[in-house]
C-alpha cells in the first residue's frame, strides 16, 4: 500500500514537476535575481531569495521528520537540536572567517573576547577550516543522534515516551547553550558574519549560490528519501511503524533499522541548519526551543505524513503564512497556529497531500 502511494507520487507527472522545480530554483530564479535589473517586473529581490531559501531549509527539516515520523512512526519533538547543532557548526566557521575584523580585532570570536576567554575551547579547535567545520556539522549531530537513539531504541522506548524524552533532551541542550561559559555565545549565539570561503556573505551572488545549494540539497534529499522508502529497508521501516511487535516476531531486530533512519534524519536536519545560518545571518539557542521542534511536526502533519512531498508543501505553506501573519497581525499568529494543530489532527489526519490522494483514488475507483 505504502509502496504504491510513493510510486504514484513519483509518477511521470511528479518527475516533470520535480524537474520544473529544479529548473526554476537552479536557473530561472538566479537569472531573475542577478541578470534582470531592479525595477523590472520580473526581478526577484534578494529579500525573496533569502526568504524562500530559508523556507527550503525548513522543508528539508520537514522531509527529515517525515522519514522518522511518517515512515517509521517515531515522533521526535527534539529535531531542532540537530538543526541548531548544524547551524552552530557553520556559525562557528563563519565567526572564525571574520578573522581579525571583529569589534575587538582579535583572533577569537567577539563574544569570547567579551567574556574574557584567552583561547578557543578544544571543541572549537580547527573550525577555521571550512571542510573540518562541515565535517563537524555532519558528525556531531550524527553522533549525538546515534548515541541517544541507541540507548532509547535499545530499551524499546517508543511512542509518546520517546517524544517526551527527545523534547527533554532538546530542552536541556537549549539550557546548556544559553549559558555564557559553555562557549556557544549564550543568549546572542553567533552573528555578525562577514564572508564565507572568502565571498562576502550579503552579496546577491553569494545569496543566490546558497539558495541554489539549498534547492539542490532539497532535491537530493527528496530523491534519497524516495530511494530509501521504496527499498526493502523502507518496507521494514513501514512495518515497524505499523506493527513493531510483529516485525520482531518475524525475526527482525528493529534496532538497526530505527537507528539508521533516526541518525540519517538527524544528519539531514543538521545540513539544513548549516545551509540556514549563512542565509539568515544568526544562530542562537532559541532555534532549539521545544516550541520550534514541535512546529516541525505540524509542518509534516499539514502536508501529509508518509508522502515525502507533503512535508515540503506543509513547511512551505505554514512558513509562508507565518511570514505574512507575523507582519500583518502578530497578535493572532499563535491563535492561528494553535488552530492549525487542532484542526489538522481532527479533520486532516492524512494532511493536504494525503487528502488529495484519497480523493483521486476514490475517483479512480468510480471510473
Amino acid at each position, binding site marked *: 500500500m505504502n509502496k504504491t502511494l510513493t510510486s504514484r507520487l513519483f509518477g511521470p507527472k511528479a518527475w516533470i514537476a520535480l524537474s520544473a522545480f529544479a529548473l526554476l530554483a537552479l536557473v530561472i530564479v538566479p537569472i531573475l535575481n542577478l541578470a534582470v535589473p531592479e525595477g523590472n517586473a520580473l526581478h526577484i529581490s534578494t529579500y525573496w531569495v533569502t526568504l524562500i531559501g530559508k523556507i527550503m531549509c525548513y522543508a528539508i527539516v520537514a522531509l527529515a521528520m517525515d522519514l522518522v515520523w511518517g515512515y517509521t512512526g517515531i*515522533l521526535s519533538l527534539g529535531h531542532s537540536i540537530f538543526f541548531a547543532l548544524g547551524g552552530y557548526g557553520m556559525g562557528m566557521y563563519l565567526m572564525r572567517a571574520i578573522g581579525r575584523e571583529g569589534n575587538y580585532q582579535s583572533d577569537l570570536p567577539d563574544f569570547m573576547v567579551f567574556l574574557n576567554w584567552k583561547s578557543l575551547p578544544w571543541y572549537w579547535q580547527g573550525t577555521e577550516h571550512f571542510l573540518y567545520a562541515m565535517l563537524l556539522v555532519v558528525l556531531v549531530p550524527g553522533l549525538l543522534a546515534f548515541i*541517544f537513539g541507541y*540507548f*532509547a531504541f*535499545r*530499551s*524499546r*522506548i517508543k*511512542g*509518546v*515516551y520517546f*517524544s*517526551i*524524552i527527545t*523534547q*527533554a*533532551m532538546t*530542552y*536541556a541542550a537549549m*539550557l*546548556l547553550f*544559553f*549559558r555564557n561559559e559553555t562557549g556557544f555565545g549564550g543568549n546572542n549565539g553567533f552573528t555578525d558574519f562577514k564572508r564565507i570561503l572568502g565571498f562576502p556573505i550579503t552579496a546577491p551572488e553569494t545569496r543566490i549560490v546558497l539558495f541554489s545549494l539549498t534547492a539542490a540539497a532539497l532535491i537530493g534529499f527528496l530523491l534519497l528519501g524516495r530511494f530509501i522508502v521504496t527499498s526493502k529497508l523502507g518496507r521494514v521501516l513501514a512495518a515497524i511503524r505499523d*506493527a*513493531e*511487535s*510483529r516485525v520482531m516476531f518475524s525475526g527482525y531486530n528493529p534496532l538497526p533499522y530505527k537507528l539508521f533512519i533516526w541518525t540519517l534524519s538527524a544528519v539531514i536536519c543538521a545540513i539544513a541548519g548549516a545551509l540556514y545560518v549563512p542565509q539568515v545571518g544568526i544562530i542562537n539557542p532559541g532555534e532549539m526551543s*521545544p*516550541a520550534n521542534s*514541535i512546529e516541525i*511536526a*505540524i509542518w509534516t*502533519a499539514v502536508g501529509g505524513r508518509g508522502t515525502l512531498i507533503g512535508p515540503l508543501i506543509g513547511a512551505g505553506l505554514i512558513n509562508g503564512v507565518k511570514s505574512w501573519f507575523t507582519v500583518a497581525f502578530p*497578535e*493572532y499568529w*499563535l*491563535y492561528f*497556529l*494553535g*488552530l*492549525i*494543530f*487542532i484542526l*489538522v*489532527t*481532527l479533520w486532516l*489526519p492524512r494532511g493536504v497531500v494525503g487528502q488529495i490522494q484519497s480523493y483521486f483514488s476514490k475517483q479512480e475507483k468510480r471510473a
Partner: protein
Amino acid sequence: MTFMRPAFLALLALAFCVSSPTSFAKPAPELVLQLATGDNDAKVAALYAIAGSADPEALPILEALRDDTLKSLGGKQAIIYDGETAIDAITGAKLAKVPDELEDVISNNRVTLALEGALAALDLISPDKATRLAAVKRLQDSANPAILPLLDKALSVETDAQIIKLLRLTQAAAQLQHADKTVRLAAIATLGASGEPNAKQLLAALLDKEDGKFKETDESIRVAAQHGINAINSHLKLGEALGGLFTGISLGSILLLAALGLAITYGLMGVINMAHGELIMVGAYATFAVQNLIHTHAPGLFEFYPLIAIPVAFCASALIGVLMERLVIRFLYGRPLETLLATWGISLILIQLVRTLFGAQNVMVENPAWLSGGIQVMGNLILPYNRLAIIAFAVMVVAGMGLILTRTRLGLFVRAVTQNRQMASCVGVATPRVDTIAFGLGSGIAGLAGCALSQIGNVGPELGQSYIIDSFMVVVLGGVGQLAGTVYAALGLGILNKLLEGFAGAVLAKIAVLVFIIVFIQKRPQGLFAMKGRFVDN
C-alpha cells in the same frame, strides 16, 4: 567597617575610662558639648559614653545630631536649631533670638557609626518589643565593651526569650576583649555554642595574624576560639544539609503538584496533554484574578484570599479541561501522537489568550502576611512559610486524590476504565462520562498546582512551559497508572536535582537528571513503563 574595629575598641576603652558609666539624670553637659564642638575622636567617645548610660533623655540630642540640626555656637555652646527656633541643648531653654554664627556639626563615618550604635542602645530599653528586637540586631554588628553596662541593664529587665538570647550573644561578643581571661573564655564558649555565622567571624578575628605572629598572645584563648569555630562550622554544615534537604522536598512537592494532574490524565487515561502546563498557568491567573477582586471589593478578606482562590483555580482549570476533552481529545482517543499535537495547539491558544487578557508581562501575586516570612530554625536555615504551606498542600492534595480514587464510586469507575475499557463499558459504566470527569479532575488539580505556584514564583503566560517537561519526567519516571510512583518520583527528582545543584549548578543538574532518567529506564523499562489498560502495544 570591620577593619576599623580594633582601633575602635582601643578608643572605646579610653572613652570608657574617661566617662563614668553610671547613669545620669540627664546626659552630662560636657558630653553634649563634646558632641557639638569636639573633634571626631571626642564625639565618638561622647557617643559611647551616652550609649553606655542608656539614658532616654539623651534621645533628642542624638536625633538632632543625626538630623543635622545640632549646631555649635562659637565652639562653646551646643544649640539645637530646626530652622525656626533655637534651643540650648544642655539646659533645654529656648533662645530668644536665633544666633547668626551657628556652625554645622560635621560627622565622619566613624561618628555616624557610633551614633547609630548609640541610637540603637537607647532603643534597647524601649517598651516596644519590635523596637527592642531591631535594636539588639543593630547592636550585634557593633558590639564593644562600652555597651556592656547597657547590655547588663537591658538583660536585667528583658523578659522576651528571643531578645535575651540575642542580648547574651551580643554581650559575649562585647566581652571578647574583656580584661578578665575567664570572662573572655566564657564569652568564647557562648559564641561557639551559638552556631551563628557572625559569631564565627568574631572568633576568627581572634586568630588573626600580624607580621606572621598571632595578634592574640594568649594561646589558651586561641585554642578556645578554634574549638568554637569548629563547633560553629559543624553546626553550619548541619544547617546547610538540612536546608538542601528542605529545598529538595520543597521542589519535590512543587513537582508533585504539577505532575499529579498528569498522573491522572496521562497515567490513568493515557492522554498526552501538552496543555497541562497551561492549565497550571490558568490556575495561577485565576488566583491573580481572585486576589485583585478581593483587593478591590473586600479588602478585609485579603488575608484569606489564597483559601478562596483554591476552589476558583480548581474550577477554572477543570472547566477548560472538560471543554478540551469534549471538543477535541474525545475524538483522538487511541491516537496518542495526534493527541499530543492537538493539545499543543490548545496550549498555544491558551498562552495567547492569557496574553490578550492580562498582557504579556508577569503579574504580581502577593503573599498574604501569614505566608510571608519564615521560621528561623538555625543560623543559616530559614523555612519560609509559603514553602511549608505548599508541602502541606501537596500532602493534602495527594491524600484527597488517593481517597477519591480508592473510596468513591467515581474512583472505582476510573480505575475500571483504566484497567479494561470494554469490560467496564459492558458492565454498564458510562465510559465517555468517566473520561470527561476524570480529565476534568486532572485538569482541576493542575489548577491547584497553579494556585500554589503563584505563591512562590512569577506568574506569566510562559509559566506552564517551564513545568511541562519536568512534570512529564516525573510521570515517566514514576511509572503510569499509580499515584505512589508519582509521589516517589517527584520527591526523588526534587531532592536529586537540588543535591546536584549544590555541586554542579542549576543547568548541569537538570542535564544530569535527564541523563539519569534515560539511564534509569535502560535498567528498568518495564517497571517504569508498565502500560496498563488501553495503552497496550498494537
